[in-house]
């Protein structure tokens, strides 16, 4: 009886651990694309208007946020799609800085994703149709690491590139807040 109980407890613990591990380490080479629609309410104007409770978190967030392989792919895309051109290594330039915890259009992964997909006024191009949803979400996952939001276990200390400041594994983990602090 008690032994069976203990066994089941053990099994449960292992299961939980497995799930956690999967979540962070699972390589998803997805053969089916994710739905094309933008997360509800996360259109530019709703975010712009601000106020009111934030929209419900897009379920896809769970697949990309804190997922190490996704973040790594996002990092590669960030360089190859030349995001560096405007945002530098997160320090900002022509485009806004991504390292600080200031998010004009919301710092949640689905909000960042829709920012990338739809583009924003003053120069941020819309990438929908140029990048697949999968790629956009991976980028979003990586962009969030620049401001040290995802868990430290899933980010890389550095890229094989010129040294760009303190390693993300050591930077403090901050909650994101939008410049109009209604969000979140």
């Amino acid at each position, binding site marked *: 009886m008690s032994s069976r109980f203990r066994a089941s407890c053990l099994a449960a613990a292992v299961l939980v651990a497995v799930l956690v591990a999967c979540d962070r380490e699972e390589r998803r080479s997805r053969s089916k694309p994710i739905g094309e629609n933008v997360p509800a309410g996360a259109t530019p104007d709703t975010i712009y208007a601000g106020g009111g409770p934030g929209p419900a978190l897009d379920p896809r967030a769970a697949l990309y946020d804190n997922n190490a392989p996704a973040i790594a792919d996002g990092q590669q895309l960030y360089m190859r799609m030349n995001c560096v051109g405007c945002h530098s290594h997160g320090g900002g330039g022509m485009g806004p800085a991504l390292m600080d915890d200031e998010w004009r259009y919301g710092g949640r992964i689905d909000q960042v994703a829709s920012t990338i997909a739809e583009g924003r006024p003053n120069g941020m191009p819309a990438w929908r149709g140029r990048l697949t949803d999968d790629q956009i979400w991976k980028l979003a996952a990586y962009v969030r690491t620049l401001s040290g939001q995802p868990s430290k276990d899933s980010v890389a200390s*550095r890229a094989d590139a010129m*040294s760009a*400041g*303190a*390693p993300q594994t050591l930077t403090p983990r901050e909650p994101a807040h939008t410049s109009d602090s209604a969000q979140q």
Partner: protein
Amino acid sequence: MIREPRFTDDLSDLPTHKFGPSSLTWWGIIGFMLIEGAAFALAFAAYFFLMGHEQGWPPEGRQAPNVLAGTLFTLLILLSEIPNTIVKEAARKADVPTVRAVMPMIVAIGAVLLIIRVFEFNSLNVRWTDDAYGSIIWALLVLHTTHILTDWIDTIVLWLLMRTRLAYEGRRLVDVDENALYWRYVWLTWIPVYLMIYWVPRL
């Protein structure tokens, strides 16, 4: 079946402790010295390997570390050999009072060394995240600091031990003797590290 024994000799008058190579722990300590020595040697090799394909060392845009703290550290650690030798000899002569008197001095020196070491880290003029040059000299300094730290703690423990009546056990005196031996190793390894961190970049 076990064969009948034929007694050839009685060893009951053999001692239960001896100094130097007769003691097992001496061999153990030599073993670990060799292991850490190999680690140091390989770290040095890595240092020169990285230095090998560079035009300048340190790489251009960096300046060599400031030598003040490191040099102070070197002088002090060399001086520390004097009390170290005194304790070593005293231990071999079973002269417990001297051991008890001098060991705190060594502990104090260790503490001062660790404080200076903090300033050393600040005087490297480079962070480990800057480039491989920074990484390797930080690695060398950290590697050596761990040795200072461990032997310092070891010395404190022995010192406390020597203030109990266990101090009159011959084997404890052997421990003191071998701890002193290890301290010699620690400051000997520091000399190449010192040269590689502070002077090779200035060549």
